[in-house]
């Protein structure tokens, strides 16, 4: 679509595309441009807002480019040790969850993909059941507590280590991309199951590994709820929880409060206004850095896994 004559300068003679094609091109370009704009604009807005004077932002004066350029917001973010700490914690949690989750999912997915696994359907059913029924918050909390994971990094990694959805996508990926013949060949050559998995399957599965890494990484990066209920030590809070505390505390309903101090609310609101956009930027940077590296695998891995399932 990029080099279509719909946008070629007048006077250059070419073989004409059919009229309907040209119209279609114009329509598509306009639609896609609008679509892109809806994605790019909020981002530009937030970047600009984080670099503007908060007054200009809250009065609506700033709508595209920064007004009253200042780095104060970023300076203020640095003044909050909780934010830096949360950022590092989140990196650690996401990094670990990404590795643990992917390892377990790829191994589990492969096992489930093998037709000769005894009780394959039963295992699959057990996994799928958890997509429909969950133990609920308090029972899950009790399990985590009794495993001694409260207030440890493990509470952030183990309870959500495997996503069933991703496990099924991974299983389907193996079923469709690793032909049974390959296993037979390897067996004839004397490879054990371990060796086959390690030397043949894994090298063929880069797309699905990349996709799993990314999805687990992003999910953990964005998660706050487990942190909220499992962590009591503020030094362990992930960035999202710190952000949530700062940004959501000022939302407040006058009919449901008992004599709250208006000055405290105003104060919390001002902190939130000052930090809001800079925080959003900071929290978005790691996923933004990660996406380009995984993108080329993304389409392949995700599509193969899901569509042909």
């Amino acid at each position, binding site marked *: 679509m990029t080099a279509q004559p719909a946008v070629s300068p007048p006077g250059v003679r070419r073989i004409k595309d059919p009229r309907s094609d040209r119209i279609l091109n114009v329509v598509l370009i306009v639609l896609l441009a609008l679509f892109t704009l809806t994605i790019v604009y909020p981002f530009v807005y937030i970047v600009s807002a984080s670099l503007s004077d*908060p*007054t*200009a932002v*809250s*009065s*609506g004066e700033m709508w595209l480019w920064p007004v009253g350029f200042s780095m104060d917001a970023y300076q203020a973010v640095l003044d*909050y040790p*909780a934010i830096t700490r949360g950022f590092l914690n989140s990196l650690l949690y996401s990094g670990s969850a990404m590795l643990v989750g992917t390892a377990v999912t790829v191994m589990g997915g492969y096992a489930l993909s093998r037709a000769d696994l005894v009780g394959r359907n039963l295992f699959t059913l057990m996994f799928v059941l958890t997509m429909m029924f969950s133990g*609920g*918050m*308090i*029972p*899950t*909390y*009790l399990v985590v*507590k009794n495993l001694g994971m*409260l207030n440890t990094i493990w509470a952030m990694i183990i309870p*959500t280590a495997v*996503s069933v*959805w991703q496990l099924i996508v991974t299983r389907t990926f193996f079923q469709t991309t690793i032909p049974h013949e390959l296993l037979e060949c390897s067996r004839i050559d004397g490879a054990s199951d371990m060796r086959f998995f390690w030397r043949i399957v894994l090298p063929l599965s880069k797309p699905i590994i990349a996709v799993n890494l990314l999805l687990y990484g992003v*999910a*953990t990066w*964005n*998660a*706050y*709820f*487990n942190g*909220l*209920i499992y962590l*009591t030590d*503020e030094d362990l809070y992930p960035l999202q*929880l*710190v*952000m*949530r*505390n700062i940004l*959501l*505390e000022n*939302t407040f*309903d*006058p*009919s449901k*409060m*008992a*004599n*709250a*101090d*208006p*000055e*405290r*609310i*105003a104060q*919390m*609101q*001002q*902190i939130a*206004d000052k930090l809001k956009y800079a925080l*959003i930027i900071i*929290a*978005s940077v790691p996923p933004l850095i990660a996406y380009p590296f995984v993108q080329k695998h993304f389409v392949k891995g995700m599509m193969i896994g899901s569509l042909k399932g």
Partner: protein
Amino acid sequence: MTDRAPLDHPTPPTEPASRSGLGRRAFLGRSAAVGATSVAVPLVLSACGGGEDTETTGGEDYTPGSAELTVELAPEIEGVLYPEDYVGPRARELEPFGDGETEFTILSQVDPDMDLATNYYSTLVAEKTGVNATYVTVPAGEDGKTKVNAIVAGGDLPHALMVGQGIFNLNEISIYGQQGMFLPLDKLIDENCPHILDMFAAFPGMRQQYSSPDGRLYAVPSMNDCYHCKSANVRTWINKNWLEGVGASAPETLDDYSVLMDEFRAYTGKPDGSVLTTASAETMLQLMQFFLGSFLEMPSLWLRRSGQTLEWIHEDPAFREGMVWIQEQFAKGNFDAGILSNTPEQYQKLGDGAQGPMFGMAYGYSSFHFAATLDYADPDNVANIMVPIAPMAGPGGVRTAQWDHFSYGYPNFVITPDCPDPVQMIRWADYQFELGLTISVGRGEQGVGWDYATEGEKGIDGRQAIYKVLPTPEDLKNQAWREWGPLYKSMDQRHGEAVLPEASTVEPTLYAAGKAYEPFATKEESGVPPVVFDLDQSAQIGEIETNLEAHLKQTIANFATGKKDASKDADWNEYLETAKAIGITTYTEIHQTAYDQQYS
């Protein structure tokens, strides 16, 4: 960005409580039901939690007030000034009593910039009481509530919890208390807490008001008897600059209001894109109630009391008259259509307009509702341009505003059966009902954040001040506990704060607002005092109220946009009928039953 991943979002439990460990398990079901008020989970109430130390709590037969006090009031500090007829906490010499060895854990809410381990007030309290306490912290508000429910369900109960302002209300405290999750405090207080008893003596209704239906007190109430809060629910503000611009004074009647709105409409000095009267969708019912107060007395949005009978206000013809008037204001454009849809941010955007606030009249509990960039020290800031406007007289001469006669504060401090020494714990709370600590809890160190006032300094109410708030250096953080701790802020104490000219504080403005509203206060006899519900009732009440609110907002939107007409009987009756279908009758009956139980 804050999307929850599917795995990360467990659903509340729906299983019924099992028989073993009833107290704790039942709590699980309860916490879920309270979290999602729309689900009523039928559960058996256990009569008593068992394992309760009857020596300290007096057991079931204890009559509140019957035990002898074994601790004396601490001696007063000389030289602190009090206004005449002062009722409230006094500055006292506190002698540490704690053994310093027993380790207590106390749960508190915190704001993100606080760290209770190193907080100044934490160290001050430790020094004054000698009690060795560590803190378990949860975020403020809904998140904190979720977490407290998880902590309590997990069984690792801290020894005491400060659950006021947003974690547990009196309903919840009563339910958990009756289950044995919290200790009854009557005997502990009667024997060990001269300062708390001093407060109960000064406010005779207080103890009863914060006791549970079984007659026991499970939580030490924090007093925050806030004068301006009494009218805050309907407080509305007017743009002083526009008033000056059109040369008018604040309207006294709804007729004046109509004239004023026409003048505002024609006024050329207002910023582009301005609207006349507005609120956010979230606060629209408060604004409506402000205006409805000019048609009939509305002590709350739904119910009023005549004698011992509670009744639904909306069937009163005067209420309908008010709604017809509101409908006309939307049609004329006096009420901005944005009222129906503004998010809180959009609403604040109007207030923060670069050329001054972009509305003539606006609702706000305090200024933070309608503006985010507040500076009380700057006369040209929105904080000083918007001034409170008193209720206006309606066509029938009615001129009222909702006045909360009943809230002194909120139940706050509970002790759990896991506490190794409830006496030390309750005395720890008791000490904080002393003046110096009650100021420090909000302002930090004496001499830095605040100090006692000198002769001649005037408090907010113009009488002799007791203390003054010093402008704190900006780098001084983590000094106070805000309002999470035990508090004894009586009205006199609150008004004893000296107003320094350089201080940026909203309090004097709000005090003036309170004064403007008080003459038109709804009568105490027509208000419904706070009542306590059991679990099923509170779930039901929560659900009905949510639905009624949605229905009323929808109806106002229909009237405002001309889809329905409040002056047509068919449309109006449809509103009333739907409200009945939602359950306004049940809502009234539940309130009536609870009221009869507690007040007659």
